[in-house]
């Protein structure tokens, strides 16, 4: 009898017990800092005790700061290149890899995915050497294949820093996003292709009528997460450019700007303002992307 009531009791309270470690940690290290950073963004700070209330002053200063403009410009260019170069490449590779007659699919999949195992910091150290003028393998390959000069200073020439960053990020992420597209393509009902063929659709028409709607939810997911990821770019340029923003700040990104103002110059209030500007920007862009891709239409998304 007592046993039975113990069981009822512990069944009732078990879920609270199970979520409580999470709730406690999440409140302290997840929820509280969100509100605290909103508050902090209204102060200029210098060390833990020196806080001066400035209202929206940080945001006002930020919008007029040329460095912030540079960071926004670089980050947006990087994000645009990432999305418009990376995702079509990922999708293209996924389509090739999902051909039924293909041999060696496992090998190709593993090969394209491999860079994802290398953390961004390690990629940056590696590519720092690959981009070395004269001897680096990037210049050697360009010289051998296209006859280009082998002394291109990828990381010293301000106009070449962004191409180098985009190239490196393509190397890192094309295969990663390909995995999502592959999974989505495998989920498309093959009978739909047969039906389209019977209706006389050519390959391109089949792609538009069957593949695109079939992979849309995953494509939107990949688009949104890839964009969010590229807005958070930091390690790659920071390490690749010797712990700096590079020549003429050509590699200055928003998160690097946040890091420098908050943790190098020590103004945590200003860094919070930068963080919230980033958060709102990312949110607006994500919502916009979901709207134009029709992610909210229909309930299968």
């Amino acid at each position, binding site marked *: 009898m007592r046993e039975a009531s113990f069981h009822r009791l*512990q069944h009732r309270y078990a879920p609270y017990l199970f979520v409580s470690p999470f709730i406690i*940690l999440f409140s302290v290290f997840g929820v509280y800092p969100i509100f605290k950073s909103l508050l902090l963004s209204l102060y200029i700070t210098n060390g833990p005790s020196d806080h001066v209330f400035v209202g929206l002053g940080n945001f006002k200063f930020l919008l007029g700061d040329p460095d912030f403009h540079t960071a926004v410009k670089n980050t947006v260019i990087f994000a645009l290149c990432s999305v418009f170069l990376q995702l079509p490449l990922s999708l293209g590779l996924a389509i090739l890899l999902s051909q039924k007659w293909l041999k060696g699919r496992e090998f190709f999949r593993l090969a394209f995915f491999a860079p994802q195992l290398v953390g961004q910091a*390690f990629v940056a*150290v590696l590519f720092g*050497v690959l981009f070395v003028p004269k001897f680096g393998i990037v210049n050697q390959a360009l010289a051998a294949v296209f006859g280009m000069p082998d002394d291109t200073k990828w990381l010293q020439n301000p106009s070449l820093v962004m191409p180098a960053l985009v190239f490196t990020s393509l190397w890192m992420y094309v295969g990663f996003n390909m995995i999502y597209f592959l999974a989505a393509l495998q989920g498309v009902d093959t009978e739909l292709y047969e039906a389209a063929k019977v209706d006389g659709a050519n390959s391109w028409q089949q792609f538009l009528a069957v593949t695109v709607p079939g992979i849309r*939810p995953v494509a939107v997911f990949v688009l949104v997460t890839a964009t969010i990821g590229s807005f958070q770019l930091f390690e790659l340029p920071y390490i690749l450019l010797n712990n700096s923003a590079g020549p003429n700040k050509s590699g200055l990104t928003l998160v690097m700007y946040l890091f420098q103002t908050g943790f190098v110059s020590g103004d945590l209030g200003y860094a919070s303002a930068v963080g919230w500007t980033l958060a709102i920007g990312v949110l607006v862009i994500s919502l916009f992307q979901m709207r134009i891709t029709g992610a909210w239409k229909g309930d299968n998304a």
Partner: protein
Amino acid sequence: MSKSPAVRLGRGFVYLILAVGAILTLVPLVWLVASTTKSNDDMFHYTFFAPHFTAVNFTSLFTKMPFVNYIMNSLFVASTTVLVQLFFSSLAGFALAKYEFKGKRVIIVIMLSTMLIPGQVLMAPLYELINHLGMMDSWSGLIVPGAVSVFGIFLFRQSIMQVPNELLQAGRIDGCSEFRIYWDIVMPVSRPMIGAFCLISFMGSWNSFLWPQIILHNRTLYTLPVALNQLRDLYSNQYGTLMAGTLLSILPVVILFLLLQKEFVAGLTAGAVKG
């Protein structure tokens, strides 16, 4: 039935594109491996491997600096983070998947909305908090704030929802406590998801650079990304040593991936496809 020449040409072209892509992807990694076996004189003399291998890069890595120390630091921080995250995420994921209780919806809504906020927003207040709690320049400053993974909770919630209720009910009839049901029934059947989560969580902690860079000042506590970045500053022209350090930093993740490959891809795509 043999294929028409046009079809064969098309297929050959597909193989060509894939081969070029695979070469472009693998060359940096092959070069990385090759560079660790070359002396500094041979480094750029031979594009990939030199005729004579040398171990000098690895010996100098271990004799001139406490590289073993850095590896142990990273291993400790990453495995602790994985274990703590795994326990908290699966337990909370189980509760949110299989129980109805007051406040459940609120918890889910709050979790979802915090996922929309980039982690960098939290860095400044977290820095203050960690400082206040006396966790600056310590591993607890890395492990404790990273102990919960909202992503992990959703991953486990989703996979545990697939576990049939009859299985849990059978456990209850046998007199299992709710925690035993979690430990002896739910966890064993969630093994694929556990594998996927361990790898994702390990990679997240292992590769993390910005936060350790901010809160670790004492060099003996450095994790690999921070240590390697510093190494690059100090030994910028000793490419072989630097690359040996890079290779050793990547290796544990590669080994873990090879062990958990199947689970990993399933877990990675579960959120997106079933979403």
